[in-house]
């Protein structure tokens, strides 16, 4: 009786129950997957332990370390310069530094390995013109370190954006105070700015690490065995589901550790941006500082965007007469269509979870909201398989033969990318004081009206940000699309990949160019919004 009374007393029951049901529905494939085959089979574990685990772990951690290092280098310094100094092309760099996000990691890897290969333009040119000199560049570029740098180039914008926002909001109070205390600008940066921005930088880095853990195409091509390639190998090549699940558990465990570390770092440095103290005046750099600024701002942009972009553009021009424009148009439309529908759904669901988390103040709601973010850390193909199992093994669902329909494809997308859409909305919601809700409530507005009349408009920019980030990620999505797509359905990403793995870089170029262009347009627009946000707060 007591319990029932308590339940009745809980506010917003309907919202909580509704969101819990949706969460359960989203989590079904994973629950199904794990309950279906999770029984610790000793032989497979021993096999894994004996032969592979050390190698997989070493590669995974080493790759994360290199990628993180370069993502931080390429992200933090330019972010600081752009936030704090006045220099020519500052606004341009602010947008340009964002663009590598439009290039999928596997395209980055394939493009550079083609560019640097023995038959690629660089080595060919040197060999034909400076034969004595050419041997210096004749190396094996398919190394884990090179892969780490390339992934760093493709992913640093996550760090850049996060630190850029944080640096701009830290505020002149801190900076002025430090300067009065006699700190040099280098010391100011390392002793004050970086520690204060740690949570923000870490949140960017977290996304980078997630992407590395999930990376498949580039990693396989470079011959680097990580947990993810291990899952594929165990499951698909050997048909050993147990080993695959064990590796997947390890992967998820690893992510929880990283999340835990992030929480710790948040706790240690509890710090709030004070509203009226953002950097008001950009400082003018000293003349030798210009050198650092220009080189550190242009390097990531040139390597991460300009070179691959022009190489792909050049390939498309060379191949111009063979481009099938109607197909290119069709695939672009396909990509845009599925990405848009899924993104809108993701935003609605994300908003629902976060809002219920906010109004209910129950631990349960927070937990549910966090668990549904799990999709982001599970390799796409594993989600795809879980979804197939779900829709074919449950008698109620299997009679409709839903696998291979757009519903199921979009369902899998939503689960996989919910976390991406959630994070900008979350940080925006957290900034708003409770008083908004309370005032609205006293005015007699119900939760739905509050959401519609207050949170929707206030968080408009965050919602658009979430939309674009999710959309660009979906545009690049590969493994889920491959395994769950309907008949005759290709996207720009699948077509690019099919050509690229056959090493037909020229043929793949027009499709990858389309991905990059659509992504870039969206990102430029996003940057415009973020800057508006920075200026408004």
């Amino acid at each position, binding site marked *: 009786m007591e319990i029932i009374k308590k339940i009745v007393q809980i506010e917003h029951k309907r919202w909580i129950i509704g969101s819990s049901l949706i969460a359960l529905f989203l989590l079904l494939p994973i629950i199904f997957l794990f309950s279906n085959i999770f029984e610790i089979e000793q032989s497979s574990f021993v096999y894994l332990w004996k032969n592979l685990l050390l190698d997989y772990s070493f590669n995974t951690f080493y790759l994360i370390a290199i990628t993180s290092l370069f993502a931080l280098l390429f992200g933090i310094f330019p972010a600081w310069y752009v936030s704090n100094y006045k220099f020519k092309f500052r606004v341009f760099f602010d947008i340009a530094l964002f663009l590598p996000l439009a290039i999928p990691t596997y395209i980055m890897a394939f493009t550079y390995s083609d560019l640097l290969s023995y038959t690629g333009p660089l080595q060919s040119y040197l060999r034909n013109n400076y034969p004595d000199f050419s041997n210096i560049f004749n190396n094996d570029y398919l190394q884990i370190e090179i892969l780490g740098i390339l992934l760093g180039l493709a992913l640093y914008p996550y760090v850049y954006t996060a630190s850029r926002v944080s640096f701009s909001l830290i505020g002149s109070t801190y900076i002025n105070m430090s300067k009065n205390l006699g700190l040099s600008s280098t010391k100011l940066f390392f002793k004050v700015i970086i520690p204060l921005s740690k949570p923000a930088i870490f949140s960017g880095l977290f996304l980078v690490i997630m992407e590395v853990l999930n990376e498949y195409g580039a990693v396989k091509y470079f011959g680097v065995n990580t947990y993810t390639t291990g899952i594929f190998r165990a499951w698909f*090549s050997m048909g050993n589901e147990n080993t695959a699940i064990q590796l997947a558990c390890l992967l998820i465990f690893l992510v929880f550790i990283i999340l835990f570390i992030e929480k710790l770092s948040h706790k240690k440095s509890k710090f709030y941006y004070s509203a009226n103290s953002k950097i008001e005046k950009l400082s003018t750099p000293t003349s030798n500082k210009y050198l650092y600024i220009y080189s550190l701002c242009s390097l990531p942009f040139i390597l991460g965007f300009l070179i691959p972009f022009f190489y792909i553009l050049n390939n498309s021009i060379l191949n111009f007469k063979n481009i099938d424009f109607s197909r290119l148009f069709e695939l672009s439309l396909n990509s845009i269509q599925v990405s848009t529908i899924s993104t809108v759904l993701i935003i609605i669901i994300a908003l629902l979870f976060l809002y219920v988390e906010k109004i209910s103040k129950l631990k349960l709601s927070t937990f549910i909201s966090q668990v549904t973010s799990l999709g982001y850390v599970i390799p796409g193909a594993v989600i795809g398989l879980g979804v197939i199992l779900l829709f074919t093994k449950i008698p109620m669902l299997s009679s409709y033969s839903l696998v291979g329909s757009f519903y199921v494809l979009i369902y899998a997308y939503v689960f996989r990318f919910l976390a991406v859409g959630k994070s900008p909305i979350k940080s925006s919601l957290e900034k708003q004081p409770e008083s908004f809700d309370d005032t609205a409530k006293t005015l007699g507005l119900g939760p739905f009206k509050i959401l519609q009349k207050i949170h929707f408009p206030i968080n408009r920019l965050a919602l658009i940000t979430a939309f674009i980030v999710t959309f660009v990620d979906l545009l690049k999505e590969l493994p889920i699309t491959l395994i769950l797509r309907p008949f005759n359905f290709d996207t720009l990403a699948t077509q690019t990949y099919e050509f690229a*793995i056959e090493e037909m870089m020229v043929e793949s170029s027009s499709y990858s160019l389309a991905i990059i262009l659509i992504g870039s347009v969206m990102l430029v627009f996003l940057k415009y919004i973020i800057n508006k946000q920075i200026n408004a707060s």
Partner: protein
Amino acid sequence: MKRIVVFISMILVLSSCGEAPKKSNEINLYSQRHYKVDEQQYKVFEKETGIKVNVVKANADELIERLKNEGENSPADLFITVDAGKLQKAKDLDLLQKISSPIINQNVDVDLKDVNGYWIPITYRARIVVYSKDRGDVSELSTYDNLTDEKWRNKVLVRSSSNAYNQALLSSIIANTGEESASKWASKLVKNFARDPKGNDRDQVKAITAGQGDLAIVNSYYIGLLLSSENEEEIKAGNSVGVFFPNQGEDESGSHINVSGIGLAKNAPNKENAIKLMEFLTSESAQKTYTDTSYEYPANPNVEPNEIVKKWGSFKKDILDLNKLGVFRNKAIEIFDKSDWK
């Protein structure tokens, strides 16, 4: 609330735009092949017969999972792979049915046929050895086993053991010489590697040209693709290596080959159309299209290989029951893992 309802109905309308396969004059393929030549073939077939060809392209193992789980409701008629081992795996999981067609029977080479009749070959490829024309000496090459000789220390190039072609090669060695000897072969070969396995088959050839190794194990058609490339440097790379077919001696097994083949799905809803497509793909005209665009060997013995491929000469094939490539797959991967072939 109204808006949400409108939005949801919008999604329903939009998502039903996709072409749902109906049981009409159609055929549904689950295919691992994603070459341009396949699209050309299907277009010609559609024109000739009026049967619409629907395709889902993905990794063979993932398609098998999809087939397996869809069970009786699966819309798939045909399962197309580039590895006989995967066809065997599908058959083993009871996903295929016997194919009986006198036309196909007549079209394809006896040596390449499935002894149980569950799948048919459309093309085949040999896993061969290429050597640097500058630094290698053909007379020193003989068998796959010979590659483990100490004289090739730090000179052999090959891609990763995750690759299905390498897995099939090792499976064939297990089938021919037994597990123990295959295991020795793998660990001795690893000692001769010029570098850690990486890249694809073409990269191995390029690495020879770049001087990173002297020998490479690759699939035959990649050399054809290099030699017909639009990039002059790739043609040069292709020309810098010689092609050698291993295991050609009288009492030797012949060079390892594998087929690209088609299985008929157990619950194929459009069985008749499916057989028509298989008959078409093994016909002389379609086989000619395959050999000329993808440089594979034709499964139809009446069709000659492409000119580039013909220049390498004919060779003795390893006519092992190709289902063994699937039977020994797991063993092969275990051996790879234990021998540290990355």
